[in-house]
């Protein structure tokens, strides 16, 4: 199957270099005999939220971890702010699907853990951590342990931790998949506010088309394994509108439908 | 009914003559079944609990305490032990004052001997540790883990061979006490007189044969195919062992005299409580079978 890269996407990757904070160049990845990713070329613009969307097993997590420097690519380069990186760095922070909270540590220690590793003094890192804990709406839970929180609250701890190290790029792998539908909707709205407020670059992986369209500035569709970029879509939705207005916006619905038609063939 | 014999040891070269005697009893129609157990205690326990008919060991302490009526009916061997010290540290009994020694087990003949000698020499040990198995103590001596202990004749030979001059054997006064004996429940003894007599006779005749000619054991081993898988080293050990042991084999099965000696010895050692003079032979021994056999084959 040839790599169908529509015109819109081609334009995109040609022009965005000016303000691309993350550049993905010819990334290929094999796990033994399994070819997970083939020739990925992408740019991610500063201050935007980009979503990776694609059928299960197409390599979304792999790509995100390669960008995070957690998984080495088989070939190709990742550049952050123009510099080639080969491992994790302070400009990037990862939010894990399973939260990756330390069960033996309080919320406060979990959130300040990134700073602890950097050697920030305790008073200072607690101050910063508390700020972000309140930012994600968990004030008062500082001394609780992860097992005392609900799934949604745990994920917020994970997000606060990523914020606390003040990275430019946040990488989120299906952050809401362990949260139930109704709370998820709430989260999406909260996330948009955070994006607005923190002005960071977000890379987001999800399975949900509505979620992708609702939160993203740009959506990268990946084809099934071996994952390649099959389409890049910019929803261009007016985010200043109220959530319910957005969800019945014609543009929004069109994009959802377009993506669904594209992915439908890959569903079982 | 089979005669169930509990042997608190494994079959080795040193028990060849006993094994041969048991085979002879079998030939005479006694269905002897031997079980080899970890220790004398277990053998005694087996007799007490009725799981074995005849036990082998020196169970004086047990006889005095146990509720079941157990009696000794034949002496198999006398204590043949050699107190030994590592000459790097000690030379004579006096040197052991305030020192640590190792013996077989609590209340055993070895402890009794060492205790007796301590009393005689007016010394006291700082500590007595219990190391079951003469060969283990021998090994421990050679390894330097034990500096003073008491070993059996094969241990003595090993020590003399492996490290000549390194160890000194301390002088021992007259010690005449039972090392191993046969014992059984009185009930069993009275109900199976014939079988018991056959066994006693087989043992006494074998003992006398070996005493007369220690090399007879080698012939006996071949005749009865005993210890078929013994290694050459073990076989080589037969002759010297019996050459030395033959002289001390009790040829008349102990009996009243042995009992008296034992009372003296074991009261001193502490295995028996009370005064030796107060102890009654019939509380410990059942002489019926032995006397009957001796009447038949005569004493030596």
């Amino acid at each position, binding site marked *: 199957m040839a790599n169908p890269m529509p015109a819109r996407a081609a334009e995109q990757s040609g022009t965005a270099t000016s303000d691309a904070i993350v550049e993905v160049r010819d990334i290929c990845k094999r796990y033994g005999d399994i070819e997970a990713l083939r020739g990925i070329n992408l740019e991610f613009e500063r201050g935007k939220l980009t979503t990776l969307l694609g059928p299960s097993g197409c390599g979304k997590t792999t790509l995100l*971890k390669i960008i*995070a*420097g*957690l998984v080495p690519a088989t070939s190709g380069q990742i550049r952050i702010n123009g510099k080639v990186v080969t*491992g*994790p*760095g*302070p400009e*990037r*922070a*990862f939010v*894990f*699907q*399973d939260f*990756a909270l*330390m*069960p*033996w540590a309080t919320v406060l220690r979990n959130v300040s*853990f*990134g700073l*602890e*590793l*950097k050697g920030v003094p305790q008073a200072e890192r607690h101050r910063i951590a508390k700020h972000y804990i309140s930012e994600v709406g968990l004030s008062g839970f500082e001394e609780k*342990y992860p*097992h*005392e929180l609900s799934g949604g609250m745990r994920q917020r701890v994970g997000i606060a931790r990523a914020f606390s*190290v003040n990275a430019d790029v946040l990488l989120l792998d299906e952050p809401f998949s362990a949260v139930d539908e109704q709370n998820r909707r709430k989260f999406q709205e909260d996330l948009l506010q955070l994006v607005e407020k923190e002005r960071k670059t977000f890379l987001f992986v999800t399975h949900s088309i509505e979620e992708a369209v609702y939160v993203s500035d740009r959506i990268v569709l990946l084809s099934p394994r071996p994952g390649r970029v099959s389409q890049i879509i910019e929803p261009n939705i007016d985010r200043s509108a109220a959530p319910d207005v957005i969800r019945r916006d014609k543009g929004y619905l069109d994009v959802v439908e377009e993506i669904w038609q594209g992915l439908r063939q890959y569903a079982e | 009914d089979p005669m169930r014999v509990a042997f608190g040891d494994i079959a080795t070269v040193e028990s060849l003559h006993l094994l041969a005697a048991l085979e002879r009893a079998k030939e005479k129609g006694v269905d002897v079944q031997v079980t080899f157990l970890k*220790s*004398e*205690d*277990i053998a*005694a*326990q087996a007799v*007490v*609990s*009725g*799981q074995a008919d005849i036990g082998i060991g020196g169970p004086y*302490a*047990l006889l005095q*305490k*146990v*509720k*079941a009526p157990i009696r000794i009916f034949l002496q198999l061997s006398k204590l043949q032990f050699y107190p030994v010290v590592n000459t790097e540290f000690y030379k004579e009994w006096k040197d052991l004052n305030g020192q640590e020694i*190792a013996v077989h*087990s*609590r*209340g055993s003949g070895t402890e009794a001997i060492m205790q007796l000698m301590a009393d005689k020499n007016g010394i006291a040990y700082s500590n007595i*540790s*219990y*190391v*079951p198995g003469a060969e*283990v103590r021998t*090994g*421990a001596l050679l*390894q330097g*883990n*034990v500096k003073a202990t008491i070993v059996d004749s094969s241990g003595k030979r090993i020590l003399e061979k492996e490290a000549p001059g390194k160890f000194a054997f301390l002088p021992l006064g007259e010690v005449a006490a039972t090392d191993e004996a046969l014992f059984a429940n009185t009930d069993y003894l009275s109900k199976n007189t014939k079988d018991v007599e056959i066994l006693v006779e087989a043992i006494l005749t074998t003992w006398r044969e070996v005493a007369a000619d220690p090399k007879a054991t080698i012939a006996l081993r071949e005749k009865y195919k005993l210890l078929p898988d013994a290694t050459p080293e073990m076989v080589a050990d037969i002759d010297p062992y019996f050459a030395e042991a033959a002289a001390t084999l009790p040829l008349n099965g102990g009996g009243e005299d042995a009992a008296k000696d034992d009372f003296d010895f074991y009261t001193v050692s502490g295995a028996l409580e009370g005064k030796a003079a107060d102890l009654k032979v019939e509380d410990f021994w059942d002489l019926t079978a032995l006397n009957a056999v001796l009447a038949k084959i005569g004493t030596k």
Partner: protein
Amino acid sequence: MHMAATPHKVSATGGAGSGSSTIVETLAEFARRRKSFWVVLSLAILFTAWEIAGRVPISFAFPTFLETFAALIEMTLDGTLLPAYAITFQPLLIGVAVSAVLGIGLGIAMGLSDKAEWLLAPVFIVLQAAPMAALVPLVTFVYGIGLVAKTLAVIMLALPVIVLNSYKAVRHVNPSLVDMCRSFQGTRLQQIFKIIIPDATPVLFAGLRLGIAAGFIGVMLAELLITPTGIGDLITYHRSIANYAHMYAAVASIIAVSTITLAVLQYVEVRFLRPEKRRK
């Protein structure tokens, strides 16, 4: 190895009004609420059966429960039991301590390094599956009969268990926690001390507990096979002089002591190391 957790569940009962209840109902209610009821009941059943069997008697060498209990009291009061435990615990504690330090160290090394794993894991797998009892007497040849030999016997049994459990603990550390630490540029040392070891701690501790159980077996083997000291001496000595009640009392007490020790450790484990388990 398995060890079923037995949390003290007090199940709430609703619905049934507790107005006028008969003794049977109260008892049934108590049985439902309290695990200790069943503990007491099953102990009572065993002791009664023991007493009856002892009185029949099934053997002269089989004392009744009451005799045994009296012997236990006697040994406790006349001061033979405590010193015996003091002696038995020496090799046990030293052996377990050595095994813990060495075992957790080796286990963590094997968990962290493929080379160490390749070199050591098979050895310990074999040692754990092997009937070590056969080797205990050998120790005597080299290390004699003293504390060293017994400690070594304890180590021989406890070490493989602790090593293998520590190794598994490290291998089963949540990989996304390790990734998390890496993503914040944690150094390898930070990774090991801030993530891997804390995350493995509950399993390490469980391994330690199993190691202690094995250590008890080891010390008993040592005291029965090498030289009788401590509780092993009480068992062999009382057997040799036909004080079977005392012998049984010694056997029962060591089993009880080990069971209680392990239960306490398990409580500690659940109470302090597994907050998520405790809550349920």
